[in-house]
């Protein structure tokens, strides 16, 4: 086996040197009846040539990967500068582990410290951690943290949050003695319905919203923050399209107390849903309630600056069941990719990408809305996603668009909302050329009529 340095002969000699004859004896502490008698029923070893051919073959059957696409809804296709993937492939980064030994892990530690700083700058918060698994688990941890901070057990969450995020929050809190109250969204604007906020009360730990929300509508974060604070609850804001930080007012500047986000937009490949990276930021005063790892600045005896893992007493390996979270391995390498992306793009690049997304989305929305029978489902301001109401069933329309026009036109909301058969969510980014948008518009027009008749 080419990944195992020692040859069979070397291993035989080593066995002898530790006083054994056969490899089987290495496992003598395992009761004989528990040891496998037959080899595992797995395929034979493959050469690189055969293996790559196999994965190329499966890849070829992922047809969506080769099409112009307007899918968003929590995973976004943005351009990633070539240096990002090249630099994360430096084996000093990708074959290292959690920086437990700071003297020989300063590369990773300094990069995480830069990551934490960038997350603070983007979200407008004071402190951020070294990453969570993804946006959805980050949101669930935010809910748990709100409960720890406020010692209140009711959490009010908007139905305009990504449905899969809602499911994950449900799973996480089901045994934590937290009562989840769902808020309706306004059918006209697509924003969290102001009147539904009446369910906020002095037992409420947090109001949880997403902005831009799942329907692409931007919430009035400032107003919602005031409502939450008025009852002593925290405002938790989640963001799935992190590029929006380049254009939208930072949640921190709107009064958010905890901000979580999916960082995939920062140069991370779609990769069928993962690995992505969860961003988690809050106010200084809550720093010691943060889940996950934190890197802090330190000095050595000669006063040289370095970085270390810090505030570890929050964590499971010390606090065990009383830890702020069970998370251990996080998304280090993806956080590094996001860091390299953000530093390469810089403030101007992030703003320009955000602006192009918004501009192209506005163009697409305008053109689609002008089609006979098509309307935009919601009126609130949007960033780069919006819901289209088609004159026909959306799922069928999109299927035809894919097969006949080779365009993935968006996400049929029926996947999550049985009561919205004709609605679909369209996402436009800087990677969608005008030709692609025009082809989408044209395809929708043509196929809608053919489907209607």
């Amino acid at each position, binding site marked *: 086996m080419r990944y195992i340095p020692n040859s069979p002969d*070397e291993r035989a000699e080593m066995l002898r040197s530790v006083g054994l004859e056969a490899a089987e004896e290495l496992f003598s502490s395992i009761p004989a009846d528990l040891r496998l008698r037959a080899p*595992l029923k797995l395929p034979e070893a493959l050469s690189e040539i055969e293996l790559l051919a196999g994965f190329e073959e499966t890849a070829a059957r992922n047809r969506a990967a080769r099409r112009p696409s307007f899918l968003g809804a929590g995973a976004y296709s943005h351009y990633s500068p070539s240096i990002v993937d090249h630099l994360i492939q430096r084996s000093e980064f990708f074959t290292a582990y959690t920086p437990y030994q700071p003297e020989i892990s300063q*590369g990773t530690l300094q990069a995480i410290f830069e990551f934490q700083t960038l997350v603070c700058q983007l979200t407008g918060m004071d402190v951020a951690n070294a990453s969570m698994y993804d946006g959805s688990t980050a949101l669930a941890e935010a809910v748990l943290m709100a409960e720890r901070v406020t010692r209140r057990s009711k959490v009010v969450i908007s139905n305009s949050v990504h449905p899969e995020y809602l499911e994950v929050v449900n799973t996480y809190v089901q045994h934590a003695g937290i009562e989840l109250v769902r808020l309706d969204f306004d059918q006209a604007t697509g924003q969290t319905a102001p009147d539904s906020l009446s369910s906020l009360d002095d037992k409420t730990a947090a109001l949880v919203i997403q902005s831009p929300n799942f329907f692409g509508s931007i919430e009035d974060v400032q107003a919602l923050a005031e409502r939450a604070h008025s009852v002593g609850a925290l405002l938790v804001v989640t963001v799935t399209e992190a590029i929006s930080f380049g254009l939208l007012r930072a949640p921190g500047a709107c009064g958010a107390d905890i901000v979580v986000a999916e960082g995939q937009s920062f140069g991370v490949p779609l990769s069928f849903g993962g690995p992505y990276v969860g961003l988690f930021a809050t106010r200084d005063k809550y720093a010691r309630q943060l889940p996950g790892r934190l890197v802090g600045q330190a000095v050595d005896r000669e006063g040289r600056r370095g970085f270390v893992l810090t505030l570890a007493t929050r964590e499971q390996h010390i606090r065990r069941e009383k830890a702020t979270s069970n998370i251990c391995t996080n998304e280090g390498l993806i956080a590094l990719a996001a860091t390299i992306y953000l530093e390469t793009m810089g403030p101007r690049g992030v703003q320009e990408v955000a602006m192009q997304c918004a501009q192209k989305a506005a163009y697409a929305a305008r053109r689609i809305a002008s089609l006979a029978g098509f309307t935009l489902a919601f009126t609130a301001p949007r960033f780069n996603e919006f819901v289209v109401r088609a004159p026909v069933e959306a799922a069928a329309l999109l299927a035809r668009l894919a097969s006949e026009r080779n365009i993935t036109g968006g996400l049929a909301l029926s996947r999550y909302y049985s009561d919205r058969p004709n609605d679909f969510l369209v996402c436009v980014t800087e990677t969608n050329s005008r030709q692609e948008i025009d082809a989408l518009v044209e395809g929708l027009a043509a196929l809608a009529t053919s489907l209607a008749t």
Partner: protein
Amino acid sequence: MTSTNVTKVTTHPTQNEALIFERSQPGRVGYRLPALDVEETALDELLPESFRRDDELRGMPEVSEVDVVRHFTRISTWNYSIDLGLYPLGSCTMKYNSRLNERVARIAGHANLHPLASEADAQGALQVIYELQEHLSEITGLAGVSLQPAAGAHGEMTGVMLIRAFIDARDGEGASARRRVMLIPDSAHGTNPASAHLSGFNVKTIRSTAEGLTDLDHLRELCAHGDIAGLMLTNPNTVGLFERNISEICRIVHEAGGLVYMDGANMNALVGVARPGDMGVDVIHLNLHKTFSTPHGGGGPGSGPCCCTRELEPFLPVPRIVREGETYKLDFNRPQSIGRVKAFFGNFGMMLRALSYIQTHGSEGLREATEAAVLNARYIAHGLAPDYDQPFDAPPMHEVVFTDKRQSRKGVHTLDIAKRLIDYGFHPMTIYFPLIVQGAMLIEPTESVGRQELDQFISAMRSIAREALEQPELVLNAPHSTRIGRLDEAAAARKPVLRWKPREAASAA
């Protein structure tokens, strides 16, 4: 000489790369985008001003592409990594991360696939997930597999929730409310109790015996109260020993109405040799980033599949990836499921790598790797025996633990030995874990290291043992060969500085 060192350390660019924010210069650019190709919408029409950002992301670094490349290339040289040599972190299985796997994960058809693509348009990816599920099921001897969890701890949470859901279904919410105790050995990894707590269990600790194994009497005693939901056991356990009474343990817990969770972090000792499912284990998590070689990436991403018996399968997270004839489907219709633990399907990129690892080894290769891993640990145990005390005198599996008993008499402790090891060119072992061993040094070489290097490691450790006796100062002040010395972690925690701030702001704060 000193002056050399001084000049070297104080101005050498590679050794003193600053934070990128300190490198930033207004007006530098590192990117270029195509020109906007649609009619522009007026800004206010696009978005009301009150919704717009007005700080222009001030503080974010302005640098060129060249600055970025040099920045990360330089700081990367401050890291130790598997590709540089032995990285014997116990319990972490720092094995070789193959380049082939990296290449596989970057094949466009997989890397560019959107998670919400229709089933029909994502058959290849679904097949990859399905095949990996099947392989892991064969390897663990457990029928149900979910690849949704993003890391080991996430898999633990999922697995423990399965137990909870199963008991609630079996006994009925009310009745089962009495079953809220999760037994966890004192040697367990911190994520175990933390995960149990997340799932609403009360943790009770089981003692280990002088042999380093689970204390059966204590287990029986704890199981007597009828409030046992289950047991979380690591096997081989965290001191590197196989729980040879595992069958008996499972029997006891099962008879007490509980289920057995096995922490599979140490599966590198068992793959192809023995299967948890055959031992009576009900549920287990694996760490693809350990046993199945997906890169640790400086702390993730990981992937922590949860494998369980047929009885527990109905409770696994949705969606399940299933096969119907020649096509692969997402099955959302699992009424008893604990629900989602993550958006989408888990860390697919890691699944590609793990499947590639399994296909590269094949059935025989996997067993060969296990044998080589255990043999390497045994070889180290044998080589260090003369100089270091072993808390338990049983032959270790894939990792071996030592204490600093002997060295500490001279005031040299585990931490010092670890730091001194750095001067010898090795990454230190895992230290002070498990907690039940005084000054624990947990050494896991994995199969990815050859004899010469094992011998170098052994002689380095032995020469440190000598130094501890003859020139303890040398060890106490180690490392001597790194850019920076030991950092004052206490001070760092007392007044934490967790982000960079512009000078004014910083001083203001």
